[in-house]
């Protein structure tokens, strides 16, 4: 890992010259070429790299879109349509950017679920996890403000509903809302500041991503067994092993991305956003983008007052709490075993958690009435129960399965039972 020795040896004169002054090539070599990664990583571990590429893609398409976009309530909708109709390949840029946001979130959800499954948040990776949750929050803010920019009906009403949440807070609520809106209702000042922030936040995300990767390279990656790297035979060099595997995974992900962009570009959007914003006409159902739906369901699940907290404030606290709780997950999990592979009960509850999250997503798209509300309430209870009750309790009462002594042992045991020739423990480092 870093902190240790560096295996970079500058060969040419110019490499030596640079290395003595600003060892950037050394940093890159140590981080992305010689960097040792566990040899048993599966494809769930490819999503970090995919996320990095998606961020770059959003920034590039976004910057070009911004050259043609006009952040003015009278012009915004038509400027986006001008991009779609008259700018060369403008339709492609715009569909890449809007579907890119969805794919970005798809990847981040898988990435987070991977972390929950393999216990990636456990010591010593707490800060790495927390930085990830900060990235998630920034992404949510970015995507929410981006969705307002085309100034369609859902843009306008989504912004109205979401900024309205803040009024639930006593005393500070109204000033916060007015600060966000730049006035008393969603209007031109809102659009202008959202555009400014939508341009800014992705670069802040990039900054936090650098910290995230730094923290990763200090502790090293986890792996499906959850056992820390112990010897050289446990790892392979990042290049070519992880590079080629990540590249392959990325190419599959890009196929899915392209499939939506070219064949179903409006599948993940809402038709109402092709209607220009109209402050006098409220859409029948105001729904956020699909990647926010589970949180929207939890917001609306709180239909009752809890002591001094009215249902509106309760809903907002629940929604913010559902993300905030992720910050303390490293300390909620009391298990000594890291990976769900060796935790039969945790594994079961994990998959129920996944199913529950999907169900909440679907409920978020339904009107808040009747059976939907009851299901949302049950789903919300399970969501929080998973973190607050199941996680701490299981760690104390669950009997984990036997854990191999090392990654190498686990890998060799697997190939042996799979009936393939086991061979001697190859010394993978040689290829690096």
């Amino acid at each position, binding site marked *: 890992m870093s902190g240790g020795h560096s295996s970079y040896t500058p060969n040419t004169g110019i490499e030596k010259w640079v290395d003595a002054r600003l060892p950037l090539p050394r940093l890159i070599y140590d981080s992305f070429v010689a960097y040792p990664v566990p*040899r*048993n*990583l599966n494809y769930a571990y490819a999503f970090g790299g995919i996320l990095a590429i998606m961020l770059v893609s959003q920034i590039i398409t976004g910057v070009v879109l911004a050259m043609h976009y006009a952040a003015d309530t009278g012009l915004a909708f*038509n400027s986006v*349509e001008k991009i*779609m*109709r008259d700018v060369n390949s403008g*339709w*492609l840029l715009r*569909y890449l950017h809007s579907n890119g946001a969805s794919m970005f979130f798809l990847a981040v959800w898988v990435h987070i679920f991977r972390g929950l499954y393999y216990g990636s948040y456990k010591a010593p990776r707490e800060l790495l996890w927390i930085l990830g949750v900060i990235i998630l929050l920034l992404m949510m803010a970015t995507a929410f403000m981006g969705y307002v920019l085309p100034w369609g009906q859902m843009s306008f009403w989504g912004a109205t509903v979401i900024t309205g949440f803040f009024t639930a807070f006593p005393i500070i609520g109204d000033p916060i809302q007015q600060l966000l809106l730049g006035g008393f209702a969603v209007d031109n000042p809102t659009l202008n500041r959202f555009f400014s922030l939508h341009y800014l936040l992705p670069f802040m995300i990039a900054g936090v991503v650098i910290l995230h990767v730094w923290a990763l390279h200090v502790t090293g990656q986890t792996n499906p067994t959850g056992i820390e790297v112990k010897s050289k035979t446990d790892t*392979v060099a990042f290049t070519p*092993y992880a590079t*080629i*595997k990540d*590249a*392959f995974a990325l*190419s*599959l992900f*890009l*196929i899915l991305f*392209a*499939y939506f*962009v*070219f*064949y*179903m*570009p*409006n*599948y993940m959007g809402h*038709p109402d956003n*092709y*209607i220009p914003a109209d402050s006098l006409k409220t859409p*029948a159902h105001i729904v956020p983008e699909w990647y926010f739906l589970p949180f929207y369901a939890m917001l609306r699940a709180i239909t009752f007052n809890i002591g001094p907290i009215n249902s509106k404030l309760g809903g907002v606290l629940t929604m913010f709490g559902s993300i905030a709780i992720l910050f303390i997950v490293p300390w909620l999990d009391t298990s000594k075993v890291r990976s769900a592979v060796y935790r039969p009960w945790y*594994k*079961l509850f*994990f*998959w*129920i958690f*996944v*199913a*529950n999250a*999907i*169900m909440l997503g*679907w*409920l978020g798209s*339904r009107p808040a009435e*009747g*059976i*939907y509300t009851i*299901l949302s309430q049950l789903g919300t209870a399970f969501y929080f129960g998973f973190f607050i009750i199941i996680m701490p309790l299981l760690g104390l009462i669950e009997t984990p399965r036997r854990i191999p002594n090392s990654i190498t042992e686990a*890998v*060799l045991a*697997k*190939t042996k039972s799979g009936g393939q020739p*086991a*061979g001697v*423990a*190859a010394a*993978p480092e040689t*290829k690096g």
Partner: protein
Amino acid sequence: MKKILLGLAAAGLGTMLAFGGGAFAEEAAHNAAEPTHFPIKHPEQMKWSFAGPFGTYDKQQLQRGLKIYKEVCSACHSMKLVAFRSLSELGYSEAQVKAFAAEYEVKDGPNAEGEMFTRKAIPADHFPAPFANEQAAAAANNGAAPPDFSLIAKARAVERGFPQFLIDIFWGQYQEGGPDYIHALLTGFGETPPEGMKIPEGTHYNPYFIAAKSLAMAQPLQDGQVTYDDGSPQTLAQYSKDVSAFLMWAAEPHLEDRKKTGFRVMIFLVLFAGLLYVAKRRIWADIEH
């Protein structure tokens, strides 16, 4: 691997049960005389030349649709984002587009004397709106302004429901909810409302209308109303299909380009992924993992 699959299966089952319960609940809330969920009837799924990965617009059909728009709908509905010049994509020559534009008058100015004036439209102009503003449009139409047509085919789609919306992703790549809706709406006027249903004055019952049981537009098209010069049947069914296809083109003029580019991109990505896979297999060949 097996464990993960089992886990996924269990997750899927749980979700499905919940979906089933919810769908059942929605069904139960239905009341024929005073429905609360719209549209009352789901649009029929039509066959469109532009559907699917290799879909293309049928230029003849678009030309017929344009004729209907021009002769019927344009009396009430604007189409502000569409320029006359883009009509060349329907197969018209430059001279034909020029002549077509010249049939319209647009406001321009101010001239050197500071006066606004009207002139004949040129290909760079957009379709002029039939009403001066939204208020005038609403006043002339029972209080409901006819929506602009530039994007209507993408601005309307009836929810497909579970599990159809998942099937739609890979089976059929369904993106034609807009034209299906418009077609259903235009052909759905003749039906009699269920017993006991009250239809507000000045509105017309249509079970396919997405927002209510009736709308302010009366049936705009009837059999034989528009004369076709390519021998196509002059029926409501045909008119409705043609104008819906035309509106899809108006909303998504680069659809063909998109699908064509998409095919090339897909071929490239699949080959690229294949090569990467082979390379990955070779690199990892001597390493158990």
